[in-house]
């Protein structure tokens, strides 16, 4: 059985934010919520590195472990999804998640939160596939259409890989063998000698 995974090739990501924009547009994500975002380390310095981050659909998901109402479930292809009908917006999953994936809409004054929203791996939610209610709550269901998450398909430098974990691992290995990794890929140490640490 294929296991769905994301892999961001940080040597290729140029922080264009196309993945973020594609996700927001595809799922009509409301203002204030980013299911995906690009994190840049050592911004503006030699050896800076950008990584596109979203829910990583963990095998033993910590969000599911801490949820007091058990709204999370994992599909047969290892996508971690949740039910917004059950979620109470408590915020525990946000503290548990090592990637900061869960997001909450601001629904009122005094910091009141709405139902949690996160990357669905473009696989919708517990409602019937392609139904209006599924789209309104979780966005489009591209996986059921025989497609992959739009963020990966839209990536301008093909940095973000999505799909069967074994397949994308093969693609990444092939890249590393061909071009190297880190300094080997970009030649930072050639340009900046030993003063750069990657």
């Amino acid at each position: 059985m294929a296991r769905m995974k994301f892999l961001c090739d940080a040597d290729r990501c140029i922080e264009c934010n196309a993945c973020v924009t594609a996700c927001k547009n595809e799922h009509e994500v409301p203002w204030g919520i980013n299911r995906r975002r690009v994190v840049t380390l050592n911004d503006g310095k030699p050896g800076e590195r950008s990584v596109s981050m979203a829910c990583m659909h963990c095998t033993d998901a910590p969000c599911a472990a801490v949820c007091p109402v058990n709204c999370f479930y994992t599909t047969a292809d290892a996508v971690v999804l949740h039910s917004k009908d059950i979620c109470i917006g408590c915020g525990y999953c946000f503290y548990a998640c090592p990637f900061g994936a869960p997001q909450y809409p601001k629904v009122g004054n005094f910091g009141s939160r709405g139902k949690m929203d996160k990357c669905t791996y473009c696989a919708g939610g517990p409602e019937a596939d392609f139904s209006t209610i599924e789209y309104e709550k979780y966005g489009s269901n591209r996986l059921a259409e025989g497609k992959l998450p739009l963020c990966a398909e839209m990536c301008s430098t093909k940095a973000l890989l999505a799909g069967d974990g074994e397949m994308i691992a093969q693609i990444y290995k092939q890249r590393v063998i061909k071009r190297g990794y880190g300094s080997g890929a970009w030649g930072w140490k050639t340009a900046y000698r030993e003063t750069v640490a990657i």
Partner: protein
Amino acid sequence: MRDDRKDEMGRRHFFRALGGGSVAAAAAITAQPMIATPAQAYDPGAEETKARYRESDHVKAFYRTNGYETLKKN
């Protein structure tokens, strides 16, 4: 002024009466036997958890274009 409202229920009396009522209600609830219900994880059903991924031509094209194989000249 104070004598005019003597026959009405005062603020303190009102809360005292309310407190007495709620104690009686709580006692009635605790008198019922407690039935433990097992915790249940959310299960949306087999239909919604089935695998949706399939290696369609669209997906194959994604894999093909992301690999270095495309750089190889025929």
